[in-house]
């Protein structure tokens, strides 16, 4: 159990600044997620935590202790790799036992510890099988169990479920989250999938080119992004973005519209579409069952509206757009969020 703190940490490779004056604190027992596009610094931060890289400047603390001179094994941080790195010639059980056997812990302790972890992960039925005979989700569990038995102070997971198919990912992410809560451990997580990130984490840190853009609970970042960057990273379909003049032209009712804003953002689910003569024209309809995604062209901008259920609309029909109260996000010329008027 540990809190992990970065204090103004930077790391460059030659001319390339991978991590740029990053500060944050991962609270004890938190599920903490790094999120950002490829090459935004996520992997470098993981390596800095593991001790595989040394910061050029700044300091990393575990529970307040500086880690600069602590070697990777002594940091006692477990890592679950993207490709899982299971040993193919060992059974699931042998894979799970491996880290303890390597540390020359006595047999009784090993057995007890392995039993505790494998029971928590509901994997008794797969223990005797080699990885080749396991499904993607089961292999995942073996890899996680192998990390768990070491009783490390924190776990790092680098996109651990991206190889699974969509349905299995939905199940596994919930399982991961429940597992982390059961084990009461700090878990640091990296993913490319915004839905997965929002689903699992207590806190998210949004990275942009090696810099921290925003840190907070997923729903806070979603509801109150501090910039157009954060706003567009979360949500599918993404937040609608338009110039203030275009928004004023497209929206029939928008009381919160700040005329001083440069850019206006509206989440698709906050856009209302009324079937009456208005400046909008329906250009595409995507019925997903639970929701219907409508593309509406108005004032030269294509707006996406996520409507609940399966309302009837016709392509080419004229519509009126409006925004739910509190659904408008206003940004300045630099893309930073303006305080609510």
């Amino acid at each position, binding site marked *: 159990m540990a809190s992990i703190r970065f204090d103004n940490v930077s790391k460059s*490779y030659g001319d*390339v*600044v*991978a991590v740029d004056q990053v500060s944050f604190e991962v609270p004890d027992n938190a599920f903490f997620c790094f999120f950002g596009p*490829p*090459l935004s610094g*996520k992997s470098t931060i993981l390596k800095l935590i593991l001790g595989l890289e040394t910061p050029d400047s700044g300091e990393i603390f575990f529970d307040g202790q500086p880690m600069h001179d602590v070697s990777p094994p002594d940091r006692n941080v477990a890592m679950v790799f993207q490709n899982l790195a299971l040993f193919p010639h060992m059974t699931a059980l042998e894979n799970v036992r491996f880290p303890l056997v390597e540390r020359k812990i006595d047999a009784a302790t090993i057995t007890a510890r392995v039993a505790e972890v494998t029971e928590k992960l509901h994997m008794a039925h797969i223990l005797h099988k080699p990885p080749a005979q396991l499904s993607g989700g089961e292999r995942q569990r073996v890899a996680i169990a192998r990390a768990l038995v070491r009783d490390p102070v924190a776990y790092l997971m680098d996109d651990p479920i991206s190889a699974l198919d969509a349905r299995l990912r939905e199940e596994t992410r919930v399982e991961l989250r429940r597992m982390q809560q059961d084990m009461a451990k700090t878990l640091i997580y990296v993913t490319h999938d915004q839905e997965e990130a929002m689903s699992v984490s207590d806190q998210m840190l949004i990275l942009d*080119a*090696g810099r921290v853009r925003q840190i907070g609970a997923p729903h806070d970042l979603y509801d109150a992004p501090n910039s157009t960057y954060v706003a567009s990273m979360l949500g599918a379909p993404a937040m609608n973005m338009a110039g203030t003049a275009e928004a004023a032209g497209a929206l029939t009712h928008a009381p919160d519209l700040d005329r001083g804003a440069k850019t206006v953002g509206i989440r698709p689910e906050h856009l209302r579409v009324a079937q009456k003569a208005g400046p909008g024209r329906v250009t595409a309809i995507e019925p997903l069952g639970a929701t219907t995604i409508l593309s509406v062209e108005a004032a030269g901008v294509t707006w996406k509206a996520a409507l609940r259920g399966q309302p009837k609309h016709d392509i080419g029909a004229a519509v009126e757009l409006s925004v739910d109260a509190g659904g408008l996000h206003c940004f300045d010329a630099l893309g930073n969020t303006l305080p609510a008027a």
Partner: protein
Amino acid sequence: MTNASTMEPVAERPAASASTGAGLGLWLTLPAQLLVLFIALFPILMQVYISLTDWSPLDGIPWWRAHELWIGLLNYTDLMADSRFWGALWRTMFVMAVCVPVQFLLGLGLAVLFVDDFHGKRVLYSTLLVPMMVVPAVAGYMFFMLFQSGGPVNDLLSLFTSDPVRIAWLSDPDLALIAVMVADIWQWTPLMFLILLAGMISVPQDQQMAAILLGASWWRRFFTIVLPRMKSIIIIALAIRVIEIFKIFDTLFIMTGGGPGVATETISVYIYKVTQQELIWSYVAAIALAILIVLSVVSVFAIKRMQRGQGT
């Protein structure tokens, strides 16, 4: 989004590269690295040293005092004028120019046959690899026997002629080299086949499927997809055989002993004779170095081509 200057180098970069640890690592491994370098280079350096002297084991002085017999570049100037050396070199080149293309084409043809499944493939495959596993000396005796004037090769030819054929393959200066080349092709085509087959199998199946669906004929696929994608492996296969043929010795020596006269005397046979029969060791060192230089040039050329091949 990100731009080029925010690239995050991931796994390619060794962990310690930019840190102060890099220098320490070099110092710690330096003794071991020097030792490896010494072991690799010592025989060659010794050759260079000996080749600049007139030393021979019969002179009764140890090799490290060979500088007492220093003759500078005399061995090399002798070599330039040594017609027997040049003859052997050109003969070796000739064998290479005939055998490598023949082995390549035969190997490629066999690879094409074996890349698809057919009945009896496994048995035939194992049979084809047998020549490669025969000890070269044994192969030498086999072909020595086959090419006797009363041997099976002539018997076979006699089936097509009215008079019995009694060609003296191994004692005719014009024919001995042919017999030697046949033996080399027999023994080493399987290796070429094996390497090319491995290369051919690794050409992605879906690329070939895509080409078929785009209407490409077998020949077009072979020349536009299969061969270009095998470029690196083809260069490796050719380089291996070129280098090996430079060293051609055992089979040949048993079949003809380099004769009749010098009709089948290749570089290796010549070196052997100079070493064992004439005991001019310093001269041999000079020949060996000359060959090493030629081979190095060939390998560098092959590696360069290979890297260009991989770039695509």
